């Protein structure tokens, strides 16, 4: 296959970037999208041009590193697929493909296609955990978890933290990411004691960095793990409930 790429190049966070046209000739349809980038990078280096920087690691769709906006779609055209699992057979010979980094205020560009997603870590550190110091746990089977709850928690916990939801959102909101974490812990019995404090802390941190959700639903479409937007409804319900619960838990003092 012969393809025409337009790839975003930007040397550093404060530089003005621009698209660079790169011909990708002789690409095999069996290659993954990132393997095509490996081939292009080898050729660029041979021509004395710097390789395109992009985040990637496991190449199995689980680490959440890869993050390319391909023809305006986060992770490209295939539903439920991270960039690393997208294969060139999904494109046609002669296609022009535009590749950009995630674009969101909360994810500043570091270089080329690499962005800084550490705002996600900030959300998790304010509440994305169950306090359970090592050694304090009782026997695992003493906590009964209905299969339905475990399955629902797992559906939410499948989030790989790639940021496609934010990149796809016209507002740059991180509602789906936050909702997935809040729901994963909030539907499990172990997560109940901190449930309402968690949702408030995580939402408040999220709002420091990210835009607001106005129910576009683009996040669900872009999610490589197909995490359901229903979790945002769970998040909102818990957030509203928390306004009352936290007060009553604190003896109406707030």
């Amino acid at each position: 296959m012969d393809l025409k790429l337009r790839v975003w190049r930007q040397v550093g966070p404060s530089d003005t970037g621009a698209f660079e046209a790169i011909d990708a000739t002789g690409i095999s349809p069996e290659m993954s999208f990132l393997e095509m980038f490996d081939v292009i990078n080898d050729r660029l280096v041979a021509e004395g041009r710097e390789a395109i920087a992009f985040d990637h690691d496991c190449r199995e769709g689980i680490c959440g590193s890869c993050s390319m906006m391909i023809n305006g779609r986060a992770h490209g055209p295939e539903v439920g697929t991270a960039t690393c699992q997208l294969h060139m057979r999904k494109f046609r010979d002669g296609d022009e493909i535009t590749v950009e980094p995630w674009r969101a205020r909360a994810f500043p560009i570091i270089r080329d296609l690499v962005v800084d997603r550490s705002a996600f870590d900030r959300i998790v550190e304010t509440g994305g955990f169950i306090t359970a110091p090592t050694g304090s746990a009782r026997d695992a089977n003493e906590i009964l978890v209905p299969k339905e709850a475990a399955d629902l928690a797992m559906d939410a916990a499948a989030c790989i933290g790639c940021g496609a939801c934010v990149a796809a959102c016209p507002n740059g909101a991180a509602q789906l990411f936050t909702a997935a974490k809040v729901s994963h812990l909030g539907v499990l019995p172990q997560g109940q004691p901190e449930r309402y404090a968690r949702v408030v802390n995580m939402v408040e941190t999220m709002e420091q960095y990210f835009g607001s959700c106005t129910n576009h639903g683009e996040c669900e479409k872009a999610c490589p793990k197909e995490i359901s937007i229903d979790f945002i409804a769970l998040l909102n319900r818990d957030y509203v409930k928390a306004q009352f619960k936290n007060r009553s838990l604190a003896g109406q003092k707030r």
Partner: protein
Amino acid sequence: MIGSLDAKIPAGPIEQKWDQHKFDVKLVNPANKRRYHIIVVGSGLAGASAAATLGELGYRVTLFTFHDSPRRAHSIAAQGGINAAKNYRNDGDSVYRLFYDTVKGGDYRAREGNVYRLAQLSVDIIDQCVAQGVPFAREYGGLLDNRSFGGAQVSRTFYARGQTGQQLLLGAYSALMHQVQLGNVELNPRSEMLDLVTHDGRAAGIVVRNLITGAITSHSAHAVVLATGGYGNVFYLSTNAKASNVTAAWRAHKKGALFANPCYTQIHPTCIPRSDDFQSKLTLMSESLRNDGRVWVPAKMADGRSPDQIPESERDYFLERRYPTFGNLVPRDVASRAAKHEVDAGRGVGPKQNGVYLDLADSIERFGKDVIEERYGNLIEMYERITDEDPYKVPMRIYPAVHYAMGGLWVDYNLMSNVPGLYVLGEANFSDHGANRLGASALMQGLADGYYVLPATISDYLAPLLGTQPVPVDDPVFRDAEAGVHDQVRRLMSTNGSQSVDHFHRQLGDILWDNCGMARSRESLEKAISDIPALREEFWADVRVLGDHETLNQSLEKAGRVADFLEFGELLCIDALNREESCGGHFRLEHQTDEGEALRDDDNFSYVAAWEFDGVGNAPTLHKEPLEFEYVHLAQRSYK
């Protein structure tokens, strides 16, 4: 010079060693823990769980990871599950059985004391993970579910769909981030350790390169903990993530830490076969698929028919035939060699005849597609994306691929290397899996080391250091180490040769796979040992790293890692040549039974080979730690 190796295995009956040891070690009182500073490198299961737990205990912890977030570490890709001797299935499991299975599975090349402790702790790990909210698979009654894994005849593997590693890592990561928020752990992402610094023979700190700014800085502490993963990528193609590397371990080795059993590399039987030269990595399909999948090849040589055209009578279910007791669930090394045997004999399947079938058809008929989808849905999807074939209709094609490193830095029972104050955890150490790791045991070991072993043993080293300060970072030992790192960066940037870093990495991978892969011989190893230094020389003369070292420069990062692989690969082959026996993942063609099984030589090789660095290109010095077996009866492994 290094004296005799003391593994410090506690005396006494095996059931009591760990408890007795925990009583015997020196403690640091809670109020004094703040006075100690510990560096942890790596944020996978071992690193994240260690940093979180040390932080909970009250130590001051600084964590470094080259990832953008701790959650990306490659533990996340582990699929199938984690073993624990809970005996929830009532099928005869016990701590002793998990211990026995693991020592036997490792082909009698692991320490009994370490493995017994691992089996004991397995039980606590599951409790801990459930308390953290890890969404393990459940029965309808709300109790935990289990599946079976290779090398065992009981069901003791706990799992979260095909994403167990992800869920366990997210658990450890959440505990870690909690400690970050509390101020007990300082997190440094996108920071790569490029040297270990020692002072008076003790670990004093590390030198780190900030991958965004290129800044090279020193960090000192009372103790340094490496949890930096395995070296499988020395083969270029492996199931490891692209950035997985040996650099931290190798640079510690060059500063005096012994490297143990590097030739013990695990070739995992169920990976998607290689399709083309541009391939950048190999993808694992969880071993758990062997629960419900039957492995077969056409009985006829070079049978070109599509699988549905081959009648039952013309199929060879070779694992079931050769190993009727364990069938498709033989350990990984055995399954891998059997598959290689069939492919080498010309019965391989697929466009390149380089695979064997893993067929889910019988299980789909027996349980229905829904059940199979629930068990393996995400794996099957992954397979379909990569190959464009539907495993619900066509049997999957699999072939062995480099997966896990049993070898690693030498550590004693406390997980401390021979360099005082340097601890090594998880895949980066050598300690628990002998010559072959059983499935679902890597997650167990990473978490045992991080949640339980290190937090209980590190105080023994720290307690006498009360009141001392870490070596200041302006001490000449740090300055010298920084200068060395600067020099290497400059050298890589200024070589300005004609070949990319990947070019050399691929060549190294070919040398190792062809000569030190699933089958090794004196001849092939001698060839590799002469080819690798030549390639290393070529690398330093002809590598091309472009750009600037003061910005994000992924070519420069890779170049440093490949430079280390080019040195380490030679040691791997030297170790393989020294070990004149076959055991587990190390298969020497000269040493096999009449049936082609691995043939050990217990009289001469029942030892840990720990190598001391003597300069690049110089022969390393071998130190032997004899292995003693008081409980497990040494025998030719049989899974028939």
